[in-house]
């Protein structure tokens, strides 16, 4: 019994320690935005990596999400004789909810994992120590450009996801199931208000912050808990980063939705 209590105490102490460390990392990441070196070149490189290179996967996911929404939406709405609302249903689902969330999950899987592994490898090969010894703030040099780039790229990728998704819904609803093109597009135009777009942008900005914070943090402290630094620790850190940021995106989605609604 005593052992069990001791184990529980150690677990909570460990969690509190981790929370404090991640909070400190967040502060240093934000402070890094205002510290040298200049970030333009690094940000452009990261926007290319996070944004441009995710274009295909985001487009692909967006198209199929829109197509499934079109198919399911038409089937459900036709039961009530409301097929005319298909455009509204697809557009609102995508812009308010699915666009930001699925884009964030895709970026986590493609770019977040890579960033975590990159920083983790830098940690185990003493490259982060080398930066510190050169009087260069690793948060400003490595993490801050990724944050700026993700804050730029993720809302744009989300917008791209939404547009492709709406076109995917159009392809199914209009071309396959015979809904009138005008009715579909009119539904999209009339139902989407600025508040919906605003909600999507706000969500994607929060998700960008979360993804970079969690993925770079996990890489930065790869192997710290075990006290040993090797490839296994990097792979564990990468897995933890993807799981933790995906879950955080979903939790954050609920919180932001409940605040903005």
């Amino acid at each position, binding site marked *: 019994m005593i052992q069990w209590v001791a184990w529980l105490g150690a677990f909570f102490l460990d969690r509190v320690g981790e929370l404090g460390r991640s909070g400190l990392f967040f502060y240093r990441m934000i402070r890094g935005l205002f510290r040298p070196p200049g970030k333009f070149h690094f940000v452009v490189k990261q926007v290319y990596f996070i944004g441009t290179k995710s274009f295909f996967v985001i487009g692909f996911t967006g198209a199929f999400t829109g197509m499934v929404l079109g198919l399911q939406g038409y089937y459900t709405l036709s039961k009530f004789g409301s097929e005319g609302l298909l455009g509204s249903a697809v557009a609102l689902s995508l812009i308010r909810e699915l666009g930001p969330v699925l884009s964030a999950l895709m970026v986590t899987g493609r770019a977040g994992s890579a960033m975590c592994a990159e920083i983790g490898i*830098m940690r185990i090969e003493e490259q982060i120590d*080398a930066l510190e*010894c050169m009087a260069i703030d690793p948060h400003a040099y490595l993490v801050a450009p990724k944050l700026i780039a993700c804050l730029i790229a993720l809302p744009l990728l989300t917008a791209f996801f939404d547009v492709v998704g709406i076109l995917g819904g159009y392809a199914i609803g209009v071309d396959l199931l015979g809904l009138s093109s005008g009715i579909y597009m009119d539904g999209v135009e009339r139902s989407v208000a600025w508040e919906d777009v605003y909600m999507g942008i706000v969500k994607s900005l929060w998700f960008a912050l979360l993804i970079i914070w969690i993925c770079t943090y996990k890489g930065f402290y790869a192997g710290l808990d075990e006290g040993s630094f090797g490839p296994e620790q990097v792979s564990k850190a990468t897995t933890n980063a993807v799981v933790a940021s995906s879950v955080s995106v979903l939790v954050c989605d609920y919180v932001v939705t409940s605040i903005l609604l």
Partner: protein
Amino acid sequence: MSAESHLIDMQGLNSHYGGRQVLFDIRFTIPRRQVTVIMGVSGCGKTTLLRHLIGLKATQPGQVMIDGEDLGGFDEAKLRAYRLKTGVLFQGGALFNSLSLWENIAVPLKVHTRLPEKIIRIMAVIKLGLVGLSEFCDYMPSQLSGGMRKRAGLARALAMDPEILFVDEPSSGLDPITAAGLDQLILDLRETLGMTIIVVTHELESAFHIADQLIVMDQGRVLAAGGPEEIQASGDKRVRQFLNRQADPRWTENPATSSCLPGERVEEGKG
């Protein structure tokens, strides 16, 4: 030797990893413009000591004085200023894999100076020339051998013309010719630029060749400190064991080794 000639004064450094103490009351001084070699078997605390000296591991106030100032009391600005005066060669070179050699050398120059890109490239190539790698300036670290990566790491450590150079295991894993070249370079840096150089190694030949002062460590403690002749003449059992390359009896006489093996213990003559 006067107090002014000492750059670093260790006044009883203790260090811990979690609850485990790894350094015990380390006391010695490091003179300016000389090569000090810290020697000892693997795991004796050399690298931990180095991490304290380069500010990667927090030091308690009052335990290490750098140029008369307390390293443990350095705030962020002071630590930054100290680091700008130091260069560090890590054991594996610690080069950035995504940058070419000259870009690696250029990293500190780009961050800390406002020099134009062309000048920075010229400076980087000059630094690479010091370690005989100027013709490889556009190569990526992955295209180089371990020895070349280490030399490139040294060139990067020299990029900001440091006053103090810390070198972690310069000769380990290198062929004798490359190792001798690195040793000569360390001596040249001391002679020509008057650098204070602190080398951590367990390579005896290299250590005695380059050292003005040697510090021998064992199990987190300083066993002996002095010039090469003093260390050679040391009567300490562990120092002699280290210098004479004798196997540690704890390895061979440890009964725990055989007790870890499966099966029954059979007494001699009964089998």
